[in-house]
């Protein structure tokens, strides 16, 4: 099939960007979206032009590196699929495809389709962890966890940190990402000691990074390639309210270090 691409090109963070038009010829329907871009880039390199920069790593939908807005949808038209796992059979011959980077103040564009997502790392560093003493590995299953809690934690832990939730949010909010980690660790016994300090620190960092505030549209859930539920956000809200009312003070001093 033959396609017309309109790709956002931007030489650097400070540069002004614009859409450039490219023809993608003889695209196989079995190609992934990124393979299609690889072919277009191969031709650009042959012509001595700057190839389209995009981030990618595992290409099997679990690393969270790839991410671009395809025709207005983060990761493209197929629900619960990352851009690398999107195949060209989802498009038809003659389609016009608009490809853009994530657009949010918290995710400045570095080049073309690549954005700086290190704000997510700083949100995690603020509290998205459990403090444990390392040493001899504990016995497996020494801490019993009810099946339902384990399932809830796993559902939230499926987040790959790709940033599609921020990209989809009209408020540029990273609440689903932040809430997924709060819900993941908050469902498990190992996460309890830091549960309420975690939500305070992560929320403060989320706000400091310039992300917007959640208005409960639900766009993030629809765009999430891992189907993280906005129920996680309700959990974050609940924990944040409890923390403000004094919950978690019993652990004051333990957070951020342990030993």
């Amino acid at each position: 099939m033959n396609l017309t691409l309109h790709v956002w090109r931007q030489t650097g963070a400070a540069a002004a960007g614009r859409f450039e038009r490219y023809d993608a010829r003889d695209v196989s329907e079995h190609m992934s979206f990124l393979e299609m871009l690889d072919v277009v880039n191969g031709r650009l390199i042959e012509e001595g032009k700057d190839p389209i920069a995009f981030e990618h790593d595992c290409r099997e939908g679990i690393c969270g590196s790839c991410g671009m807005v395809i025709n207005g949808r983060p990761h493209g038209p197929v629900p619960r699929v990352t851009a690398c796992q999107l195949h060209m059979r989802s498009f038809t011959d003659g389609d016009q495809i608009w490809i853009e980077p994530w657009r949010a103040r918290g995710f400045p564009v570095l080049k073309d389709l690549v954005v700086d997502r290190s704000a997510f790392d700083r949100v995690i560093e603020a509290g998205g962890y459990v403090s444990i003493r390392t040493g001899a590995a504990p016995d497996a299953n020494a801490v019993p966890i009810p099946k339902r809690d384990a399932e809830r934690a796993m559902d939230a832990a499926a987040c790959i940190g790709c940033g599609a939730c921020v990209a989809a949010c009209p408020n540029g909010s990273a609440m689903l990402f932040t809430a997924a980690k709060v819900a993941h660790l908050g469902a498990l016994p190992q996460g309890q000691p830091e549960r309420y300090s975690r939500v305070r620190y992560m929320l403060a960092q989320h706000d400091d990074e310039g992300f917007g505030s959640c208005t409960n549209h639900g766009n993030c859930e629809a765009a999430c390639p891992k189907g993280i539920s906005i129920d996680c956000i309700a959990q974050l809200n609940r924990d944040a309210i409890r923390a403000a009312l004094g919950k978690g003070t019993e652990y004051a001093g333990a957070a951020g270090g342990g030993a």
Partner: protein
Amino acid sequence: MRRVAAFYQSTVGKKVAMAITGFILVGFVIGHMLGNLKAFQGAEKFNHYAEGLRELGAPFFGHGQVLWLVRIALIVSVGAHVLAAAQLTLRSWRARPAKYHAAPHLELSYASRTMRWGGVIIAGYVAYHLMHFTLGNAHPDFLPGDAYHNLVVGFQSPWVVAVYLVAVAMLTFHLYHGIWSALQTLGASHPAVNRWRRGAAAALALVVLTGFAAVPVGVFAGIIR
């Protein structure tokens, strides 16, 4: 208190303030609607009810005292609701400086998309509504103390009725998303009840729509005269 103050500085804290004040205002809206419906019982009952509002809390409180306490609570609620909304809106606009070439709405509903400007329209209508039926300076023939007369005369103009219905429609959408959203913000989420929350918000919004629209339509249709 220090923690509560710090929490209010966060995006979630301001949302919680909006949710709490929102529920106070929903309570007012429902009470107001129930009062309005007394117009169908005729002039005497309606005026008795309107005058009775000033005697709320008797004999512990004097004439109009509790009414003013309620008014102050409502003014504070509206102020806090609007202030937090304005702060969060400005923040969110800054957080999304660039638009996409073409973005489908995905899960955005009409109600969720119109929360901000719908809220502005509702606030503007409330100002007009107070001048119309409370202060009387936007009313063609305002008689202090005769609420029934003011209501019937006030709704004679089809334009007034049309504006009223538009405002009530905006309120309906605002409540449909707002009630659900407030439950989410307050963390009222549980697998057993989550699928009922949107339905409950829709039902309450429709009750408000029906209850408020009934009175001007009743006047216009000649049922209330």
